[in-house]
C-alpha cells in the first residue's frame, strides 16, 4: 500500500466535501436533490477562468506565480469574481425555475426533474461556449515536496487542504451560532412554521444558494487548479457529491465534509487496489452500503 493514497484522497476529498456542503444545504433547506449542483462547480471554474483572463488583460503582473505556488494574485482575485458570478447564476436559476416551481407548490420530485433538465442544458452550454477541450488555470509545473512517511504534495495541494479546513470551520461556526444559521435550521425543520415565527424564508433561501454556490465555485476552482477544467468535471463529481452528502447525513456541514473525505480516500485506495478504471463505482458502492446500513447517514437524524 502506497501511503501517497492518503494525500491523494485528502485532496480529492476536499473538493468533494466542499461541493457536498452546498448539496446537503439545498437538500435540507430547499428540500430537493439538486442535480444541477455538479454543474455549478464546472461553471464556477469556467467563470473564474474568464474573470482571470479579463484581469490578466488589465494587469499583466497578476499572472506571475507567487512563490511557492503555481499561480499569481490574479487567481484568488478572479475566484472572488467567480464566486459572485456563480452566486448570480444560482439566484437567477432559482428565480426563473426552482422558485417558480416552489411557489406553485410543485412536488419535490418535479423540482428534482427540473434540476436534471437544467443540469443537461447548463453543461452543454459550457461545452458550446468553451468546447470540450480541457483548459488550465496555469501552465506552471510544480514539484511535489516530500512530507515524510513516503508522502509527497505540491504547495498548491497543501493550500487546497488548508483552505478547505478553514472554510468548513467558518461555515460550521456560522450555521451553529449566528442568527442566520438558526433561521436556516428552523426552515429546514419546517418552512411553514418558521415563516409563522417571523423568519424571512426568502432570505434563508438566498443565503442557502449563496453558500452553496460559493462553495461550489471554490471547489470547482480547486479541482481546476489541481487537475483540469472540463465541461463535464462537475457532472462526473455528481455521484461522489450525493454519496458524501448522504453518508454525512443530509443537512450536516461537518457530515458532508467528512463524507467527502471518506469518499476521496476510498477512491484513492481503490485506485491502488482495484484499478483506476473502477474509481467512479466507489461512490456508488458507498451509497448502497449507507442506504442499507444507516440511511440517515453519520450525523443525520432518523426521519420522524
Amino acid at each position, binding site marked *: 500500500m502506497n501511503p501517497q493514497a492518503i494525500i491523494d484522497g485528502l485532496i480529492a476529498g476536499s473538493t468533494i466535501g466542499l461541493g457536498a456542503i452546498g448539496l446537503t444545504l439545498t*437538500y435540507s433547506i430547499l428540500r430537493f436533490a439538486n442535480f444541477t449542483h455538479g454543474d455549478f462547480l464546472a461553471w464556477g471554474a469556467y467563470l473564474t477562468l474568464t474573470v482571470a483572463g479579463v484581469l490578466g488583460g488589465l494587469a499583466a503582473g497578476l499572472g506571475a506565480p507567487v512563490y511557492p505556488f503555481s499561480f499569481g494574485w490574479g487567481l484568488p482575485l478572479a475566484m472572488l469574481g467567480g464566486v459572485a458570478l456563480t452566486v448570480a447564476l444560482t439566484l437567477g436559476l432559482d428565480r426563473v425555475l426552482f422558485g417558480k416551481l416552489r411557489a406553485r407548490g410543485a412536488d419535490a420530485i418535479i423540482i*428534482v426533474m427540473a434540476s436534471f433538465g437544467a443540469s*443537461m442544458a447548463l453543461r452543454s452550454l459550457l461545452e*458550446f461556449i468553451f468546447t470540450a477541450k480541457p483548459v488550465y488555470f496555469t501552465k506552471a509545473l510544480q514539484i511535489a515536496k516530500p512530507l515524510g512517511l513516503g508522502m509527497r504534495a505540491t504547495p498548491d495541494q497543501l493550500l487546497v487542504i488548508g483552505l478547505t479546513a478553514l472554510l468548513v470551520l467558518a461555515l460550521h461556526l456560522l450555521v451553529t451560532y449566528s442568527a442566520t444559521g438558526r433561521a436556516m435550521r428552523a426552515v429546514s425543520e419546517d418552512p411553514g412554521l418558521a415563516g409563522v415565527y417571523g423568519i424571512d424564508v426568502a432570505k434563508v433561501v438566498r443565503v442557502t444558494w449563496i453558500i452553496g454556490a460559493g462553495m461550489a465555485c471554490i471547489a470547482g476552482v480547486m479541482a481546476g487548479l489541481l487537475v483540469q477544467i472540463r465541461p463535464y468535471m462537475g457532472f462526473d463529481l455528481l455521484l461522489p457529491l450525493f454519496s458524501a452528502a448522504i453518508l454525512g447525513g443530509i443537512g450536516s456541514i461537518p457530515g458532508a465534509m467528512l463524507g467527502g473525505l471518506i469518499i476521496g480516500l476510498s477512491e484513492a485506495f481503490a485506485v491502488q487496489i482495484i484499478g483506476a478504471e*473502477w474509481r467512479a463505482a466507489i461512490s456508488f*458502492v458507498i*451509497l448502497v452500503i449507507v442506504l442499507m446500513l444507516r440511511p440517515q447517514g453519520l450525523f443525520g437524524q432518523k*426521519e420522524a
Partner: protein
Amino acid sequence: MEILAYAAFFLTIALTYAIICLGLNVQWGQTGLFNVGIAGFVGLGAYVSAALTTPDAVERIGGFDLPIVLGWLAAMVAGGVLALAVGLLTLRMRSDYLAITTFGIAVALQLVFQNTESLTGGAFGMAFIPRPFSGLQSEPFAFNVLNLALTALVVLVLYFLLEHLLRSPWGRALRAVREDEVAAQALGKNPILLRIQAFALGGAIMALAGAVQAHFIGFIAPGNYLPMMTFQVWAMLIVGGSGNNRGAILGAVLVWAIWALSGALISEIFPADQQARAASLQIVIIGVMLCAILLWRPQGILPEVRSVSRHLGLRNKDN
C-alpha cells in the same frame, strides 16, 4: 424508395424509444417514481440479450447463439430483477433517494460495460448481434419495413397490455398511492409493495426496449447508454404527457423527430470542425424545453385521462 426506407428506419428507432417511454410511464406516470438511470436499464437489456444471442466469439464469454425472442425475454428478466433490487433498497425512503440511486446504477453499469472486456467487449462493444429478418438485409426497404412492423407490434402489444393493467384495480391502486399515500394505506393498500411492483415492471420494459434496439441495429457499445439517453427519454415522456400511454408514444416520436431534424440542420449550417460543438446546442434546446414544459404545461401534450372503475362510470350514467 430510399427516403421511405429511411423513414421506416427512423420510425423504428423512434418506436424503440416509445417502448422505453412506456416503461417510464409505468414508473413515473402512474406511480410517481423518478428513475434517473434509464440508460442503465436499457443498456443492461441490450447487453444481456446480445450476450445470449450472438454467435460464439473467441475474445469474450457468452455468445450462445440463442433465438432473438429468448434474448428479449432474458433482457426483461434482467431489467426486472435489477429494478426489484433497487426498489427494495430505496423505495422505503424519500423519493429523491431513488433518483440518486438510479443515477448511481447507470454510472456503475456504464463502468461494467466499459471495463469487463471478457463479457461486454469493453469500449469496442459487441457486434454481430442477430437482426430480425436478417435474410433481407440486401433489400433495405423490405428489411426496414418488416423491422418497423415488428417493433410497432411490440409497441402495440405493450400498449394494450399496459392500458388494460392500468385500468385494472392494480393500476387504480398505483395511482391512489401516487396521489395520496396515507389515504391508500388507510384503504388497506401496501404502498411500498405497489411501488416495487411498478418499478420492476417498468425496468423490465426498459430492458426489453434495449434488447429490441440492439437487435435492430446489430451493434452495441457503452457510448450508447450515456446519461444523455436518460435525459432524452424524460423529455419524451414529459412532452408527450406523463400518465398517458398514447402521450408516451407520441412524445417519443416527436422528440426523436426534433432531435434528428435539429441534428440534420446543424450538420447543414455549421462547418465540419464546429459540428461537435454545435451538437451541444441540441442538448441545450431539449433541456430548456423540458424545464419550460415543467413550468408551463406540466401535463404535456396529451394529459393524463382520468380513469375510474368501469362500474362506477355505469352507475353514474344511470343517475
